[in-house]
């Protein structure tokens, strides 16, 4: 078989990233320029600032990825780029750069859905086995996705309000943690005890959807009430209680869906996959299930990166998915419309 090299480009939020993946599974290079430090003083990602940074970083990051890979553009099989969802102005930079490279070197252009990318980060760890279930938990998404085969995506559950990562960040703000707050809450939770009984949003019987805004409000109210009464709450315990509620619902619904759909693998994806509580509890729960493998990518592949975009792009390339130079950034790109089957 001829070697397949896909250049991946990702600029959907606040990381400018480029990577080269060989044969869909092997990382040849993986470069990420994060803007987190720039956005910190604003307490969150400022879209216009993110776009401005991407323009300044984009060719530098792609060049580094190509240099590290030791490849020429003529050796590439194709260029894959995140077309959405994400911040439109940020996405645009990656899309325009990818189109320009594809045009300059007459390469196939492959549009990739950001969440498909997050899922395909797992293929850089171990080969996918279908059918499978992926729990995507990130700053903007909380979804359970069923895949019957490569390129097929069925969203069987999703958040009706806040994404898990968003809830972490909002709770973190109430506890005065710096942005992004998720990792801080995670650390505090490990130092505390779940002493407060926060609600679990199970929703209707049998639903695989999620909801975290009620929980978030409950946490915020608890803090405000305590402040009004002049009581002190132990932040570590609050964090632990919040995390317990989030993790319990995520794990419970994932396991239930895995059983119902008879999957061979559960893939964890997205930035919140870094969460220790979630990793531990999911591992414990899967241990009790026979014939289901749990795959959790290393941290570097959980947060936004281009290796995952190239990995997904590799599969879409094989399936014949192509974009022409009219490709646009689509901030609301739908995963299922992107599904091959």
């Amino acid at each position, binding site marked *: 078989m001829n070697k397949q090299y896909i250049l991946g480009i990702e600029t959907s939020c606040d990381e400018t990233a480029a990577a080269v993946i060989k044969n869909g599974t092997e990382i040849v290079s993986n470069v990420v320029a994060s803007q987190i430090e720039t956005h910190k003083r604003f307490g969150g990602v400022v879209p216009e600032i993110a776009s*401005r940074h991407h323009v300044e970083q984009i060719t530098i990051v792609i060049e580094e990825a190509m240099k590290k890979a030791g490849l020429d553009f003529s050796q590439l099989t194709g260029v894959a780029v995140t077309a959405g969802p994400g911040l439109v102005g940020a996405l645009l930079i990656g899309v*325009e750069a990818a*189109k320009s490279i594809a045009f*300059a070197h007459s390469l196939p252009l492959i549009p990739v859905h950001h969440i498909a990318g997050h899922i395909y980060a797992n293929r850089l760890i171990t080969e996918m086995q279908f059918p499978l279930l992926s729990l995507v938990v990130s700053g903007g998404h909380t979804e359970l996705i069923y895949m019957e085969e490569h390129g097929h995506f069925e969203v069987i559950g999703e958040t009706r309000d806040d994404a898990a990562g968003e809830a972490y960040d909002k709770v973190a703000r109430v506890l005065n943690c710096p942005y992004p707050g998720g990792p801080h809450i995670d650390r505090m939770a490990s130092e505390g005890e779940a002493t407060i009984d926060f609600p679990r949003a199970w929703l209707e019987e049998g639903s695989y959807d999620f909801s975290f805004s009620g929980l978030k409000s409950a946490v915020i109210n608890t803090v405000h009430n305590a402040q009004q009464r002049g009581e002190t709450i132990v932040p570590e315990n609050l964090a632990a209680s919040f995390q317990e509620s989030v993790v319990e619902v995520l794990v419970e619904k994932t396991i239930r869906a895995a059983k119902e759909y008879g999957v061979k693998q559960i893939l964890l994806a997205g930035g919140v996959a870094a969460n220790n509580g979630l990793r531990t509890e999911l591992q414990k729960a899967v241990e009790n299930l026979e014939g289901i493998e749990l795959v959790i990518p290393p941290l570097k592949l959980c947060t936004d990166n281009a290796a995952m975009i190239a990995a997904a792009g590799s599969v879409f390339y094989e399936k014949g998915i192509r974009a022409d130079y009219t490709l646009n950034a689509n901030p609301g790109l739908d995963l299922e419309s992107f599904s091959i089957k």
Partner: protein
Amino acid sequence: MKILAIDTSTNVLGVGIVNHEKVIGEYITNIKRNHSTRVLPVIDFLLKDCGIDKSEIGKIVVANGPGSYTGLRIGVTIGKTLAWTLKVPIVGVSSLKLMAASGRYFPGLISPIMDARRGNVFTGLYKYEDQKLMLVEEDKHRSAEEWGYRLKEYNQPVLFVGDDSNIHKETFTNILLNNAQFAPSSLNTAKPGELGLLGKDLDGEEAHLFKPNYLRLTEAEAKWRDENREV
């Protein structure tokens, strides 16, 4: 040497090809439609139509601001990526200077206008001297009214260029009276061939460092600066 010129700084989408001294291809639209879906297809089309292979491009000129933030980023990203990956020099030319080039035969001053909302404009002051376009006052974000009074001091005819000058026509006419003159629509759409010529003799810039001249901080940065000023 063939030059590819790209202007996406306003509603005008312009792509031009210059061969040595000669403008050989121009594509211009002046409509409110997404630049992102159209710029590369237009470049592709125009090159093919002119019978030029992309490997023949020897230089890229981009109108690098001021203008619509998103528009600027589209042109600049395409320009810098092409320049870097095709290993050719890139140069930036002020989008306002490009607009001012329409006033080549105007005996006076030229003020290209881009509306910046709330009574503000992006503008600079230019004039032709011996067929060469010279900068008189730098491009800046200004109050239209203050700019009108500033121009009055010159006591000379001023040609306002750009569709947006119509938005401020009353302001300028009230202040400058007969000295305020307005370009016709045919001269309001910046010519990408002119852009190629304006950039022809400029030294190439480092593609990696090439970025738009927004001429304004982002709102978030401006607010942060104001809030942290006293500290």
